[in-house]
């Protein structure tokens, strides 16, 4: 199936969880936050969160800004 990951169409396995996505992006141990379909998903729920076809996943971090 395909999901939208930070704006890009991305193929993933059917049983993919948010935890899998985080590992795939090498984000473990860094500071990030995740939204699915414009709703925040707390870190504690990532492992059990199964993605569906067409889900819109946004992963954000802090950057310099004024």
């Amino acid at each position: 199936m395909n999901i939208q990951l930070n704006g890009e169409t991305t193929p993933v396995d059917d049983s993919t969880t948010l935890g899998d996505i985080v590992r795939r992006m090498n984000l473990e141990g860094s500071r990030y936050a995740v939204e699915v379909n414009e709703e925040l998903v707390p870190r504690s729920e990532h492992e059990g969160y199964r993605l569906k076809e067409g889900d819109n996943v946004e992963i954000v971090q802090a950057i310099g800004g004024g």
Partner: protein
Amino acid sequence: MSENTDTFSVAGREFSSRLLVGTGKYKDMEETRAAIEASGAQIVTIAVRRTNMGQNSDEPNILDVLPPDKYTILPNTAGCYDQKTAVRTCKLARELLDGHNLVKLEVLGDEKTLFPDVMATLKAAEELIKDGFDVMVYTNDDPIIARELEDMGCAAVMPLAAPIGSGLGIRNPLNIRTIVENAKVPILVDAGVGTASDAAVAMELGCDGVLMNTAIAAAQKPVLMASAMKKAIQAGREAYLAGRMQAKRFASASSPLEGLFF
């Protein structure tokens, strides 16, 4: 006046530095770190953006350079033009900072001026406060809106001095003074400062602090300008507390007229 006794507090947190700085537009992380160190700032703003998919994980993150145990991180909603994206940004920031709930709300209304959309700002502030955020809010130099934002429960009100990144200085000192005189929450000038004298003027008007980014980052020597701003903020604050003399049209001799021997 010692720095320790003249603190200001926002949302129950106490600070000795009245200079708040942004972390954008620097040449690199090392310049960011050095400039912020020189500014003496304790509160630093950050932005929230998409993780770079192809990024080098060895590249330092802004929060490695400015660790949250040393600095109070103030996530902003820069780039948000509506209530919904501003609120989403704040929720993401709270998550990535482990529940830290202090935010700088800005809802922009126009790309050319970056003036706030005040109506959307009021709605977003209300929603965020209900959700438990401590909101420091960017707004116009409008005393009526500033009062409204304070009444609603904002932790600090931050009127612009001039458009963001313009460096034009304080365009309407009378409004800033009126906002300060009306307020019970901290008032900080946010945006528009260009050089050290602008920062001093803001403090002489009675502001509790100044938030700036471009004035430091876009200087020829950012680290030196950061140091200048630190001193300007302190000088302006002390001048405000000292109470300036009345300005007069004509001269008044400083040496006594009695005892002249000629």
